């Protein structure tokens, strides 16, 4: 479902119309030129399709009742979210009610009582769908895969139907709850009935939306064109993290823009390999492990979830080899993470069941077998054919009343899972074995 195309083809048009109505209604109508936005701020969430738009405009009010029409054709604005707030002369300007006129979509009308005549700066806030952002990372591993340069970027995509010009952009890292889709609310065009929602106010006296085709801004007309990378300022708010992009940016409808967020060289990594038959059959999976911490030259803020592409330098003039691509989870500060980079066939783990026996049979009163014990000897052959040292993590899953005898060092992950973790030098081959005893039937004591 991509409603954006039609939205885009019809250039977004929305209008803020100030009408000054002297009572009795209809006696005199003043239509003034629409004031442009003085400022606009986008707060974009990545966990849901929602962006909070905050804009300020300077309106000229007259004393008495003022009607203000706000319409937003061909955009993805949630009509239930539009809010009006005077920033200056707030004591004198009073919002009486808001009306969504019948048979007119994408329009609302505020009735405002003003005890002040003159210019008032107002803030208009609403939610829109269709703007999103995501994080991306490029990991450049050193030849020995002991360190990497990690570069993060954010990419903002605008399919909202509206060109937000010279906007301040804020990105929210965090998970928010929405009970209704903003896109669905926007596409209803009108405020739908909802429990606890008052009935629509009566029709306004008169209104006509004068549509102004907004110009489609092409890239290259950013009012501020900085000659350095824009800094992305990061701060924590409640359970969220807020990234504020320095300066202003224009992302026309249909466009996307990627901005560098950080670049950190010399982040220590471990080339980590995992084997677990229950998850990947006989494949050995490759990971880069690192910690989002200050000793690892990171750790200043959590890293949002995103896609990562990993490369490894293979020549002195920094040519790449492609290592793999994957998605990384949200990484809190001081958390250790793994980037899964796919199967690697140059690290081999070959488990072989070398002996199996069944003993200690016991019988019930009817003479049937009620308990027995099996003993398995497993031999593991491991080999690192790579030209770098790696860490290998082999996991085995057991069930029932089991016990393990081995010379190899292992850790119990949980009641039924153990792991053998050890370093493997370049071109190293080694073997280890364990004996697994499982008591079945009435032989089991746990």
């Amino acid at each position, binding site marked *: 479902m991509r409603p954006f195309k039609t939205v*885009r083809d019809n250039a977004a048009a929305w209008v803020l119309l100030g009408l000054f109505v002297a009572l009795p209604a209809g006696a005199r109508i003043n239509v003034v030129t629409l004031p442009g936005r003085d400022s606009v701020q986008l707060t974009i969430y990545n966990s849901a399709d929602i962006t909070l738009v905050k804009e300020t405009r300077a309106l000229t009010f007259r004393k008495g009742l003022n009607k203000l029409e706000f319409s937003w054709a061909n955009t993805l604005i949630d009509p239930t979210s539009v809010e009006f707030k005077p920033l200056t002369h707030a004591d004198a300007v009073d919002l009486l009610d808001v009306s969504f006129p019948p048979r007119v979509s994408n329009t609302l009308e505020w009735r405002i009582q003003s005890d002040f005549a003159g210019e008032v700066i107002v803030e208009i806030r609403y939610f829109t769908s269709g703007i999103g952002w995501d994080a991306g990372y*490029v990991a450049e591993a050193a030849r020995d895969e002991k360190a990497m340069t990690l570069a993060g970027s954010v990419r903002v*995509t605008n399919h909202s139907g509206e060109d937000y010009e010279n906007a301040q952009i804020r990105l929210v890292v965090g998970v928010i709850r929405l009970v209704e889709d903003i896109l669905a609310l926007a596409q209803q065009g009108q405020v739908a009935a909802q429990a606890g929602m008052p009935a629509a106010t009566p029709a306004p006296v008169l209104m006509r939306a004068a549509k102004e085709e907004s*110009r*489609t*801004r*092409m*890239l*290259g*007309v*950013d*009012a501020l*064109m*900085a*000659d*350095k*990378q*824009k800094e992305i300022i990061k701060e924590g708010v409640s359970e969220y993290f807020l990234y504020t992009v320095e300066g202003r940016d224009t992302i026309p*409808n*249909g*466009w*996307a*823009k*990627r*901005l*560098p967020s950080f670049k950190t060289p010399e982040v220590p990594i471990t080339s980590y390999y995992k084997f677990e038959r229950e998850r990947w059959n006989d494949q050995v999976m490759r990971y880069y492990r690192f910690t989002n911490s200050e000793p690892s030259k990171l750790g200043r803020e959590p890293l949002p979830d995103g896609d990562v*592409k990993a*490369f490894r330098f293979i020549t002195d003039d920094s040519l*790449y*080899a*492609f*290592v*793999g*691509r994957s998605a990384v989870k949200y990484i809190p500060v001081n958390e250790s993470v793994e980037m899964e980079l*796919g199967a690697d*066939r140059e690290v*081999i783990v070959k488990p*072989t*069941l*070398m*002996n*199996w*026996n*069944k*003993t200690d*049979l016991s*019988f019930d*009163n*009817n*003479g*049937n*077998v009620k308990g027995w014990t*099996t003993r*398995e*000897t497993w031999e593991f052959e491991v*080999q690192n*054919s790579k030209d770098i040292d790696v860490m290998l993590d082999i996991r085995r899953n057991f069930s029932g009343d089991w016990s393990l005898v081995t010379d190899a060092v292992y850790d119990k992950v949980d009641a039924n899972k153990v792991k053998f973790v050890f370093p493997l030098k370049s*071109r190293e*081959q080694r073997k280890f074995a364990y004996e697994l005893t*499982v008591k079945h039937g009435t032989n089991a004591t746990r």
Partner: protein
Amino acid sequence: MKTTLLLTAFLVIVVAPAALARVKLVALPERARVVVSLTHPDATLIEEERIIALQKGVNKVDFSWRGVNIDGTSIQIRALTNPDKVIVLNTSYPPNENALIWEINSPAAQEERVRISYLLTGLTRDIVYKAIAEPDEKSLALRNYLRLRNESGEDLTEAELGIGYGAAFKKSIAHEEVLEMLSERIDSLPIRKLLTWDAATLPWDPEYEKKTVGIPLSYVITNSASSKLGRHTLLPGKVRIFIKTREQPVRDGEAPGDGVAFTGEDWAQLTPVDREMKLYIGQSRDVKVTQRRTKDERLNIRRNNSQQEVVWDKDEVYKIEIENFKKTIVDLVVVEHVPGYWKMVENSHTKEFRKKDAFTFEYHLALPAESTGTKKTTVTFELNRLNVQGNNELSTY
């Protein structure tokens, strides 16, 4: 589907309030270098270098492609001449176009060598092996070819192609071209010729077969230094094996010519260093294997109160008779499968016996030349299978 990779650089000096159409300048810098990395099995990485003329200040560099299957999210640009000073400020992606625009700041008007890298689909590689065995089948000459298939939409000129080992090739390959090149050649590579008779898959008594039983024939190559290999993992690919033959002389009295005959082919598996590549290339019908179970008795039968048999042991004896009709020694591996808990009681060939896993063992036999009739090789073994149950629970592995 003609390639059009456009790279345009131009300077935006004036920030005009009016909207500007996106301008593509025609003056394209040629690629100064193209490097293709085929090391990853699923993705081809292209790195190309171009020299672009940057003006002082912010430059817009436009990169667009048509008819080329590039992963747009993978495109990166890196400055090589002044990596610390020439900075990529941001990347913009126009709607409905395979294009992007970099804003690059340069501290001065200068030429900058940049490296643009991206993942490309449609440029694939196959590894192809061709081998010519000596008539004695003790060694062969191996040729390892890289076969490139370019369906990427992109013409690559003088590209440096790397497959992760050995030196890079510098080649041109046009769109829709297939290019095969020799990447490695090893002469006199020692091989082992091996027949494998598996009791689970081949008939035990050839007398009851309508056709002569063929025993799978393999060549075994070890990827190690002693086999003149061992420098890198051998990649999977098709192996075609030929054997040298002596041809009839062209004219009477002349020396016989050299020729080859095709002996078979197989898919080589990925073979890391120090491991064996076993190529199953055909069948041998000059070796005859007859296996019989000569004893099959149950012992220690335990019954429940209803007189049903619950647990027992078994005593089994097997006899394998092998005849080699060839005039040479033949290496034969006999594979036996015994599930459950068992113990070997008697074994005529302990030196040749190899336990492979809990339920599999092998005999590695060297059959004397022309060992038939009374000279045949006879292997016997007796095993006891223990604690056999009516409902055997072997599902623990």
